[in-house]
């Protein structure tokens, strides 16, 4: 049972490039989330999903896209990367009957 896994751990992008951050959970959780964590700030919700095929925007969705074709996977797509997207990105999941979230180890992204 690996929990929530994220790849890559680190990535440097040039302005205007695109990439996909991968997130997989093996706990059969319906709910999945993407957050970003900026220095000195709490986590901000980017997108979330309540099940396969269902996604919705969080607080800071601009510049990102998501899809949820399976229960296990919830990739986050960055199109046209900008320096403002430099951050640490965390994926999380939770089961339907409990509210605590389980977090992945994070992806540190730098856009230059």
């Amino acid at each position: 049972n690996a929990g929530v896994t994220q790849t890559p751990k680190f990535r440097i992008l040039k302005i205007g490039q695109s990439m996909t951050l991968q997130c997989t959970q093996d706990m059969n959780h319906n709910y999945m989330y993407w957050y970003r964590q900026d220095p000195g700030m709490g986590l901000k919700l980017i997108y979330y999903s309540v099940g396969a095929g269902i996604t919705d925007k969080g607080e800071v969705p601009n510049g990102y896209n998501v899809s949820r074709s399976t229960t296990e996977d919830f990739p986050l797509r960055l199109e046209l990367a900008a320096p403002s997207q430099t951050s640490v990105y965390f994926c999380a999941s939770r089961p339907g009957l409990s509210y605590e979230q389980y977090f992945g180890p994070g992806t540190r992204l730098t856009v230059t």
Partner: protein
Amino acid sequence: AQSVAQPEDQVNVAEGNPLTVKCTYSVSGNPYLFWYVQYPNRGLQFLLKYITGDNLVKGSYGFEAEFNKSQTSFHLKKPSALVSDSALYFCAVRDGGASNFGNEKLTFGTGTRLTIIP
């Protein structure tokens, strides 16, 4: 709009002393409250939660927190601090009153860095 305040960026405590990390919240419906801990270069780990019931909740690693509705607070406590408790602690709140689908937003505080001094 819901919000969380952690008024102290940094808390230093001597090993063996009791510790408190403060959190106050604002939410329109019933508050669901959480504490998470983050160790360097790691994701957040769940410590404890308050959903309903007893105001004193116990969690992992000997931590506990007290829900105080009148003061809208949910302070994290531990009777005797360990050096291994040194980490970044986040308080979070969600509105338990709205429907699940429309209210998945978990609002985090800005974090409190706890340092336990040997």
